[in-house]
């Protein structure tokens, strides 16, 4: 199958599997049983569609398979079976999109984080257990076990299939967005493994963010996360050489950035900002937007970036944010001031490869080549990502 056909197949499954899962959970009232039926239907689709072509009505196809299977396997559960027999399909027009309930259940804080990710991918995006295992480079049995345990906990602990109450919604939404963001980071630049980028997961993260933005159009952080993901992806083509090596921001060929996507994402940020409820995703998106809008590296509005990082650190204090602020400070106040700010972060970040890599760069600029090389070597020890490793190795050898 060609890459394009594969991507199309993934897209169609993703567009429909979550909707089907949501409908079936509502219909039979049992999360685990409904989820099994959808997973079986998706497996069947992945066997049939590459050979027979994608059907004109993929959702109907999936539903028919899931229903037939349900009538078969749920024989002992007369209650579920009856509901399946009586179900109207397709669901009557105007039925609300239930995938919101689905994702809130999958990302429930009573589930372990790894299970939230696996469950969201499988239930909302229609990934198979094997696909999830490949994306995270873990054995399939591990993923299967996580999903089984999570489904058992949902049933046994009484994790509800409903939206959180309004006073809880904000906190719970933050947890849902964290799962989507983690997924995006994993896809955009996976920190382990030989493949530099696993494009699938970034696709899934963007899909989830767009779905949430459609279902919660007045939540500024949802729009902020969607803008952030789209801005990063708009520059994806320029991030790697054909050999898979990282091209750093100053050296990227900006003509390869997707200008239309950048403009659209910037509009999303403006729409979010109108709500006057700033948040970490909106601020991160704004930072990326400042970079994306600069025609050349030299045109970057660094004071603006420093300001945005200061706001971000005020809202969600983190040593990594402070590190990024220090990097931006280099272009506003010079390398010595930046190095001083970086060195203040030694205690929390001495195990983080980018802290050492940043120090190396600043030390080099200040003419301290030996110390710079030592810092690069330390960074190299600390990262498993092959593209980052080759960049660091090159610096140690050539500078």
């Amino acid at each position, binding site marked *: 199958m060609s890459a394009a056909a594969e991507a199309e197949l993934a897209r169609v499954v993703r567009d429909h599997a979550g909707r089907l899962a949501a409908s079936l959970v509502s219909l039979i009232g049992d999360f685990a049983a409904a989820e099994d039926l959808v997973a079986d239907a998706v497996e069947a689709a992945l066997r049939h569609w590459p050979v027979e072509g994608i059907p004109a009505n993929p959702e109907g196809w999936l539903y028919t398979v899931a229903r037939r299977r349900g009538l078969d396997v749920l024989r002992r559960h007369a209650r579920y079976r009856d509901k399946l027999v009586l179900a109207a399909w397709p669901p009557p027009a105007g039925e609300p999109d239930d995938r919101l309930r689905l994702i809130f259940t999958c990302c*429930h804080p*009573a589930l372990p984080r790894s299970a939230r990710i696996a469950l969201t991918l499988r239930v909302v995006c229609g990934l198979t257990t094997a696909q999830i295992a490949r994306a995270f480079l873990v054995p399939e049995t591990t993923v299967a076990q996580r999903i089984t345990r999570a489904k058992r906990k949902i049933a046994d*602990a*009484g*994790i*509800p299939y409903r939206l*959180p*109450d309004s006073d*809880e919604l904000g906190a719970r939404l933050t947890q849902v967005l964290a799962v989507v963001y983690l997924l995006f980071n994993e896809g955009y630049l996976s920190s382990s493994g030989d493949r530099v980028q696993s494009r699938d997961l970034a696709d899934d993260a963007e899909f989830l963010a767009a779905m949430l933005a459609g279902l919660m159009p007045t939540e500024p952080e949802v729009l902020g996360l969607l803008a952030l993901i789209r801005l990063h992806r708009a520059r994806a083509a320029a991030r790697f050489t054909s050999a898979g090596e990282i091209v750093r921001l100053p050296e990227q060929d900006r003509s390869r950035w997707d200008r239309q996507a950048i403009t659209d994402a910037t509009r999303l940020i403006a729409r979010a900002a109108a709500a006057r409820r700033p948040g970490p995703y909106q601020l991160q998106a704004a930072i990326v937007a400042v970079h994306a809008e600069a025609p050349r590296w030299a045109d970057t509005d660094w004071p603006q970036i420093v300001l945005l990082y200061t706001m971000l650190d005020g809202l969600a204090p983190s040593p990594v944010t402070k590190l990024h602020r220090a990097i931006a400070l280099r272009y506003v106040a010079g390398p010595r001031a930046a190095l001083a700010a970086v060195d203040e972060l030694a205690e929390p970040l001495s195990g983080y490869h980018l802290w050492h890599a940043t120090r190396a760069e600043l030390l080099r600029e200040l003419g301290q080549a030996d110390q710079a090389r030592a810092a690069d070597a330390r960074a190299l020890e600390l990262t498993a990502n092959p593209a980052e490793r080759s960049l660091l190795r090159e610096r140690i050898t050539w500078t």
Partner: protein
Amino acid sequence: MKYVLMFVETERFAADLAAMDETERERAYGRVRQWFADNADKITGHTYLMPPHTATTVRLEGGEPVVTDGPFVEGKEVISGFAEIDVADLDEALRLVRSWPACPLVEIRPIAG
């Protein structure tokens, strides 16, 4: 669904409580009584335990039962009480626990069957 809330005290919490004067402690107990009163429609039973120094543990694994002094886990966190609640789902249990005014840890477990 029925759940048991297990209230867990930490050394720090016990020390803070011991350091309170009479009025403060009475106020703290008052908040707990208020919590039970506010949620009376969902609480089907509750028990407060004597402190861990009163505990006796019996180990029945293999051979003779072994009786030892103290709780079954020697730790800084000890169970100090239980409440049984009857609510719609885990989210409702979580809502209840979020407003708990006393010890800093609560474990929520569904009741089997």
